[in-house]
């Protein structure tokens, strides 16, 4: 009877599974562009969708379909969309399930965080899903599994101690049967880590410390006990190459941020990308962008994985526009440096040597103005790569500097809020299209104000992005010309996504206190 029972059970099981987000579906997320299954869209993190109903010819006919409003800001979520259901986080750590067509709410889960010492804002950038379960990293450094049908918590584990300055703001990354997260708190004297948990139970599978302990390779790049609280946080979602079975994560600044005298050395693996085995957490390779950083140049950007011809031969590359102002191409099988070129004004390095190590300029940062400034040439906001154009798109701050000195006559350029009358001197934001082969700028869409917006590209040749002025733009990704824009009345500090329900394509973006969803008239 045993066999019979099994046969009878199978049809039910497969019907149940079909609605579930399996690892196989995550691997092939590009095959179901009607959904948005991970923070960066696919494991390659190119934020490119093959949807093309909205295209360069009809983008002018976009109109607002619905808005969902939240209480708190900054609202930086990237929604997930699975079969017409949208899942978002609202700050700090609530999860809401919505009808992706109308914005009607199915359920809301309120997580009551008890943050310890937060360096920055109590933000959350989104969720991960596997099977029927959503995963959220919290500002008090917990990882919570939530039933996607009911909003009920399934398990909740503490990843690190919030009282010691640890927090989490990223969307987790699911690989196989594990959920991966990193810890923020790089300004609080933490020791950064990336950790994996069993998706079904929350049991810790492995932890990789972003600062090597005594006896481990790389520890010699620290002095004394600085390694114990040297920062190197990990506050943005990584990428995954299933063929190489490697997961890639950007690592933040060393601590103290601006005083490198107490931590002489390169301070590995701060300001680096690390390539890990997702099954064990073992380090395969690393590449450090800004050794011995003292300008807060976190290398916390999204690793964008691209297979393309590199100077005549196919290559498995990683493209990276870094906060330090350089745009890099790496070989992601080994971490080999292929090329690097400044994409914004910078004066801290006299270029990069053959290995990609910066040749630091002789200017003393503490005596002079430094380009790019403290927020960097870019930052955490997602770039995009379009296989149609072969171009890499990044939200950039150009001609932007900070002064690291006492007694300077010039005020540091900065402004926030409703009023911007500073940008003459403060540098401007732009959306740049870069050629991966040369690092050359193919086009630039300049904004008066700066931008914290991610970028989405699509097979309709339409690029979506925004900026601090509150404008949300549709640009022609081939030449940067503006096709459409809408004033959303609040900072676009999130990455737009696209999805399709009942044959109709939508574009969603968080800005100010709202999630705005657009579609064609």
């Amino acid at each position: 009877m045993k066999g019979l029972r099994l046969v009878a059970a199978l049809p039910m099981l497969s019907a149940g599974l079909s609605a579930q987000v399996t690892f196989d579906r995550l691997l092939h997320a590009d095959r179901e562009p009607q959904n948005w299954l991970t923070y960066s869209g696919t494991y390659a993190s190119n934020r490119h969708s093959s949807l093309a109903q909205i295209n360069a010819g009809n983008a002018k006919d976009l109109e607002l379909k619905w808005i969902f409003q939240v209480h708190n800001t900054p609202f930086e979520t990237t929604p997930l969309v699975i079969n017409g259901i949208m899942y978002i986080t609202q700050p700090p750590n609530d999860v809401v399930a919505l009808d992706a067509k109308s914005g009607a709410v199915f359920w809301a889960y309120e997580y009551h965080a008890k943050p310890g010492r937060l360096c920055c804002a109590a933000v959350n950038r989104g969720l991960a899903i596997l099977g029927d379960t959503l995963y959220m990293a919290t500002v008090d450094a917990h990882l919570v599994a939530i039933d996607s049908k009911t909003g009920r918590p399934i398990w909740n584990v503490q990843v690190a101690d919030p009282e010691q300055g640890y927090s989490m703001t990223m969307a987790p990354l699911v690989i196989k049967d594990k959920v991966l997260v990193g810890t923020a708190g790089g300004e609080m004297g933490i020791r950064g880590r990336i950790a994996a948990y069993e998706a079904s139970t929350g049991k810790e599978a492995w932890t990789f410390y972003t600062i090597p302990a005594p006896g481990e390779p790389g520890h010699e790049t620290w002095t004394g006990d600085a390694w114990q609280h040297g920062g190197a946080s990990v506050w943005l979602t990584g990428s995954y190459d299933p063929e190489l079975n490697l997961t890639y994560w950007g690592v933040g600044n060393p601590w103290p941020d601006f005083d490198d005298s107490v931590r002489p050395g390169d301070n590995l693996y701060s300001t680096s990308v690390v390539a890990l085995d997702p099954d064990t957490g073992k380090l395969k390779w690393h590449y450090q962008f800004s050794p011995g950083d003292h300008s807060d140049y976190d290398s916390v950007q999204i690793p964008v994985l691209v297979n393309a011809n590199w100077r005549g031969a196919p290559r498995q590359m990683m493209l990276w526009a870094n906060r330090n102002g350089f745009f890099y191409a790496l070989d992601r099988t080994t971490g080999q440096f292929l090329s690097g070129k400044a994409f914004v004004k910078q004066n801290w390095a006299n270029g990069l040597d053959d290995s990609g190590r910066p040749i630091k300029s002789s200017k003393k940062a503490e005596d002079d103005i430094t380009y790019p400034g403290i927020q960097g040439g870019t930052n955490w906001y997602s770039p995009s790569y379009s296989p149609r154009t072969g171009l890499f798109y990044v939200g950039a701050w150009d001609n932007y500097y900070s002064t690291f000195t006492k007694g300077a006559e010039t005020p540091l350029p900065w402004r926030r809020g409703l009023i911007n009358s500073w940008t003459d001197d403060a540098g401007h934001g732009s959306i740049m299209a870069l050629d991966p082969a040369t690092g050359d700028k193919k086009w630039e869409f300049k904004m008066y104000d700066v931008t914290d917006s991610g970028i989405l590209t699509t097979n309709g040749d339409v690029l979506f992005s925004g900026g601090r002025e509150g404008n949300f733009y549709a640009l022609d990704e081939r030449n940067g010309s503006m096709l459409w824009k809408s004033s959303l009345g609040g900072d676009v500090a999130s990455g737009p996504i696209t999805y399709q329900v009942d044959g109709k394509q939508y574009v969603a973006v968080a800005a100010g206190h709202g999630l705005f969803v657009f579609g064609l008239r």
Partner: protein
Amino acid sequence: MKFAISATAFALLALPAWGQHEAALAVDIENGLHVYRAYCFTCHGPEGASVPGVDFRRGEFRHGATRQELTATIRNGIPGTAMPANNLDTDDMRRVTAYLTSLHDFQSSKVTLGDAQRGSELFHGKGQCLNCHRVETQGSRVGPDLSEIGATRSADFLERTLLDPTKAMLPQDRFVRGVSKDGKTIVGRRLNENTDTVQIIDEHENLVSLVKSELREFASLRTSTMPSYKEKFSDSELADVLAYLVSLKGLN
């Protein structure tokens, strides 16, 4: 801008912990005043010294004076006292802590201050300051409003402005000049600007929004229209006017 710079140095050098987002800057300090008035003013008072044992201008805080510590105090409140927990958003928290930590710098100015009453007479008379500026309900709105200039600018910044207005002028006080396609020139003080438009108050005190694509020429002007008072005022007159300006605290 001494107050802004020292606050900046404080955040960038002495308090790296603030770094992942941004340091304390002049505009935050300015905006922080408004947050202060909304949340703190009732108990802590105009000078920040109304609560016994606490004096913001002297840098006297009960539970720590760094921006991190202030953030924690403001967020959590102080149990057993009248200090409540305040649910400020991140921007407002950054602004108000920038403002609070900048306050004590106002007292460290080396500028000589004279008699505020005499300064008021000079300001309203010989100096002709109200031709362009406004204090409370008097004067022109074309130049920057000075009603609370003593709360947002240090004395030495004000002195530098009086002596060399162009050099001391901040970007947010710049005028802009636009020429329409039919040749009409419009000049005004910039209130705000974005990619497509600029908002100004023109020389007739009209609020005008200019669309850049409709202009033949557009420029922001880096020369101040304010005259230097270096020759116009004696040293003692200058000290009197500065004393008056420093006394302007807005809602006080």
